[in-house]
C-alpha cells in the first residue's frame, strides 16, 4: 500500500467509490437494470448453437486483424479512398480535434450533430468544438441527457443508466422548459422533437464506428435509435472518428460480430440498425453527404500494440458486457472511475492510454473474480491483464515499504525455526498491536481502519497436529 500523498485520480477514485458504494438508491437502480440485462442476455445467448466456438472465432479474427494491423488498415484506406472518402491519420487526440476544427471552418459549419462515440469522449472533442464557438448536440438519447447535465457518460453503452425518469424529467424541464413527465415514452418524444429540427439544420454530422471493414472499405455503425443513420446521412459533411484497432478483415466477418456485439451488449439478437457506410453520396444516388471524412486515431493505441502480452486488450469491441457483470462497477458506478472507459476494460487500458502510475489504482480495485473474462465476447483475459498492470506498475516504480515488508516475509518464511518462534509469540505481539490498532500511527492503518484481524490462536496448528497424532492408538 502506498504511503505517498495520492495523485489526483487516485484520491478522486477513492472518494467517489466510497461515496457511491454507500449510496443505496444508486445501487438499487444499477442492480435492477443489470439483472434485467442478465436475464435477456441469457436467453439470447442460449439460442446460439455454440457460443464458445463463436467466441473463439471472434477472438481469432481480432487476433488476425490486430497482428496484421498495418496491412488491413492500408487495405481499408485504399478501398474507401477509391470511393471518395477522405482519410486522416491522427497520431494524437489534439491532431484529430484540430483536423475537425479546420474542417468546420472550411465548410462554415453552423451547427453540428453527433451520434454516440466514446472515441470522441476520449479526445474531448465536444470541449474543443465548444471552445471554438460551435454548437454541438448529442443525438443519442442517453448521451443527450448527460450532455444537458454536463456529465460524462456513465457507461460505455448505457450513458444515462444512473438516472431515474424523475431526474431526467427535471433535467429536461430545467434545460428545455418542457413540462414534467414520468413516462419514459413522453420523455423520449421530447428528445425526438428536439433532434428532428437539428438533423435538418446541422451541416456537419459526427459519428464513431464499431468496425472498419478492410476488404470493402466501409465503416459499420451499430445503434438502436436511428440517430446515427440520420446523423450520417442528412448533413452535408459526415466525419467518422475511429480508433485504429476497429478494423476487421472481411465484410463476411460481420455475420459473426454483429450478433455477438448485440448479444453481449444489450442482450438483443441484433441491434436495430447495423449500417455500413462506404463513402459520400455515390454517382447515381439520390442523397447522402457530399464529403465523408474518416479519422483514424492512434492516441496511445500503438503503445498498447507494442506490448505483445497485453495486445489483445485492443480486441475489445466496446460491448460493455464486462461492466455489466463486474461487482466493482455495480457498487461504485461508472463515474467513480474518472476515466473515459469504465469497468474492467477501462481499468485495463486506461493506464496504457493515460499513464500507468496515475491510473494503476484502477487495476488494484478488483476482486479478480474473473466474471469479466468469462463474459467477454472476444475472450479477452481481462482479470489477468489487471494483474499484469499491477506487476508492471510495481516493477516500474517499486513501493519501498511494500518491498521491505515482502523481504521480511520471505526472510521469515524461508527459515522454519524462526517462523515457529514467531508463531509462538504472535498472540503477545497481537496484544501489543491492539494498542494502536485502527489508529493513524498503525503501520497497517490502510488495512485495519475498516477491518479487524482475526485473533491469533495460542496453540499453533503444528502443536495441535502433534497432539492429535499422539492420541491415535
Amino acid at each position: 500500500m502506498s504511503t505517498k500523498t495520492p495523485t489526483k485520480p487516485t484520491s478522486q477514485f477513492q472518494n467517489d467509490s466510497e461515496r457511491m458504494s454507500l449510496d443505496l438508491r444508486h445501487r438499487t437502480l444499477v442492480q435492477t437494470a443489470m439483472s434485467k440485462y442478465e436475464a435477456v442476455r441469457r436467453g439470447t445467448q442460449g439460442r446460439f448453437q455454440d457460443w464458445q466456438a463463436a467466441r473463439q472465432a471472434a477472438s481469432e479474427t481480432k487476433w488476425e486483424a490486430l497482428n496484421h494491423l498495418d496491412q488491413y488498415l492500408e487495405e481499408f484506406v485504399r478501398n474507401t479512398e477509391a470511393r471518395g472518402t477522405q482519410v486522416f491519420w491522427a497520431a494524437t487526440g489534439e491532431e484529430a480535434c484540430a483536423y475537425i476544427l479546420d474542417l468546420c471552418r472550411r465548410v462554415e459549419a453552423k451547427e453540428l450533430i453527433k451520434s454516440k462515440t466514446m472515441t470522441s469522449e476520449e479526445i474531448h472533442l465536444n470541449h474543443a468544438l465548444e471552445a471554438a464557438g460551435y454548437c454541438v448536440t448529442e443525438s443519442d438519447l442517453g448521451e443527450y441527457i448527460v450532455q444537458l447535465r454536463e456529465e460524462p457518460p456513465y457507461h460505455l453503452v448505457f450513458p444515462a443508466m444512473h438516472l431515474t425518469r424523475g431526474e431526467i424529467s427535471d433535467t429536461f424541464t430545467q434545460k428545455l422548459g418542457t413540462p414534467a413527465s414520468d413516462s419514459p415514452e413522453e420523455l423520449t418524444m421530447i428528445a425526438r422533437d428536439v433532434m428532428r429540427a437539428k438533423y435538418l439544420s446541422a451541416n456537419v454530422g459526427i459519428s464513431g464506428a464499431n468496425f472498419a471493414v478492410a476488404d470493402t472499405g466501409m465503416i459499420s455503425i451499430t445503434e438502436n435509435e436511428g440517430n446515427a443513420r440520420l446523423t450520417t446521412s442528412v448533413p452535408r459533411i459526415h466525419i467518422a472518428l475511429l480508433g485504429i484497432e476497429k478494423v476487421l478483415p472481411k465484410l463476411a466477418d460481420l455475420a459473426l460480430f454483429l450478433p455477438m456485439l448485440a448479444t453481449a451488449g444489450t442482450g438483443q439478437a441484433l441491434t436495430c440498425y447495423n449500417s455500413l457506410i462506404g463513402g459520400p453520396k455515390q454517382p447515381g444516388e439520390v442523397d447522402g453527404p457530399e464529403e465523408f471524412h474518416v479519422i483514424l486515431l492512434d492516441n496511445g493505441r500503438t503503445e498498447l500494440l507494442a506490448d505483445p502480452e497485453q495486445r489483445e486488450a485492443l480486441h475489445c469491441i466496446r460491448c460493455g458486457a464486462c461492466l455489466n457483470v463486474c461487482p466493482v462497477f455495480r457498487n461504485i458506478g461508472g463515474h467513480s472511475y474518472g476515466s473515459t472507459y469504465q469497468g474492467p476494460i477501462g481499468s485495463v487500458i486506461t493506464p496504457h492510454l493515460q499513464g500507468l502510475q496515475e491510473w494503476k489504482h484502477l487495476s488494484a480495485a478488483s476482486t479478480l473474480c474473473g466474471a469479466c473474462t468469462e463474459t467477454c465476447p472476444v475472450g479477452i483475459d481481462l482479470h489477468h491483464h489487471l494483474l499484469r498492470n499491477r506487476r508492471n506498475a510495481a516493477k516500474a516504480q517499486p513501493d519501498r515499504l511494500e518491498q521491505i515488508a515482502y523481504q521480511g516475509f520471505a526472510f521469515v518464511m524461508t527459515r522454519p525455526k524462526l517462523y515457529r518462534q514467531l508463531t509462538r509469540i504472535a498472540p503477545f505481539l497481537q496484544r501489543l498491536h491492539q494498542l494502536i490498532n485502527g489508529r493513524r500511527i498503525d503501520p497497517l492503518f490502510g488495512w485495519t481502519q475498516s477491518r479487524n484481524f482475526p485473533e491469533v490462536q495460542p496453540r499453533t496448528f503444528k502443536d495441535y497436529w502433534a497432539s492429535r497424532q499422539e492420541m491415535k492408538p
Partner: protein
Amino acid sequence: MSANEQISSGREQILGRIRRALQVPAPKRTPHEPAPAADRYAKSLPVIRPEARAWLPPVGEAWAEQMQLFTEQCADLRADFFLCADVAEMEERLAVLAKDCGWQQIATHPGAMTTGAAASLSLPILLIEDGYEIVALEHCDAALTECDALVAQTGSVLITSRSAGGRTLSALAPHHVVLARREQLVPDLTAAFALLTERYRANYPSLMSLVTGPSRTGDIERILVLGAHGPKRLTIFCV
C-alpha cells in the same frame, strides 16, 4: 509543411509505429479448442463464413421454416409483417393501413413494386429523386420502400441506398413500409452478406443497412420505448 505532406506524414508515422510494435508477435490464446486455430481462419478466407452457421442461432433449411422464423422474429421485434397472396391483397392491406393511420402524404422512390403500390393509394406522393427537398420529406407520414432481402435468422430487412430510395427516406419517416418478394427471403446474415457482395461487388452503394424492427431505445431506466429517432413503426409486406 503543406497540408498534403502533413497528411502523409501522419500516415507514415502511425504505420511505422504499428510495424515496430508488431515486430514482437503476440501469443495466440486458445482457451477452448487449441488445435485448429490457424487454419480455421484460412478456411474462412472466401467471402462467406459458412462455419459461422454452426455456431449462430439455427435456421431451418426449408423456405417455409425460414418464413416461420422470420414471422416470429418480427412479432418479437414489434414489426408488423404480412405475407400476402398477391399484389392485389398487398394493395388492399396497404390501403387499410393508410386509412387507419390517417396518412395525408407519403414518400416513395421509383421501383418495380413501389411505383404501383404508391399510386394505388391515391394520396399525394413525394417521389425521392436526386435533389428532393428534405423538409418536404420530413412532413410525410410514411415512407414506402423496397429492399434487398429479408433475413430469417434475425427478422431483419436488408436495405441499401440503391434499393430503398437513398439513405434518408427509410430513416426519417415516422412509419417505414417495406415491400418485398417471397424470393427475397434469405436464411441468415452469412447469406445476406454474400448477397451484398454478389450484387454490388463492382460498385457498392454508399449505405447498406440491416433494419431490425422499428427504432427503439432503453436509455431511460432500461424501459423499451419504440420510435426514438427513426421510424416508430415498421410494416413489412411480402408477396
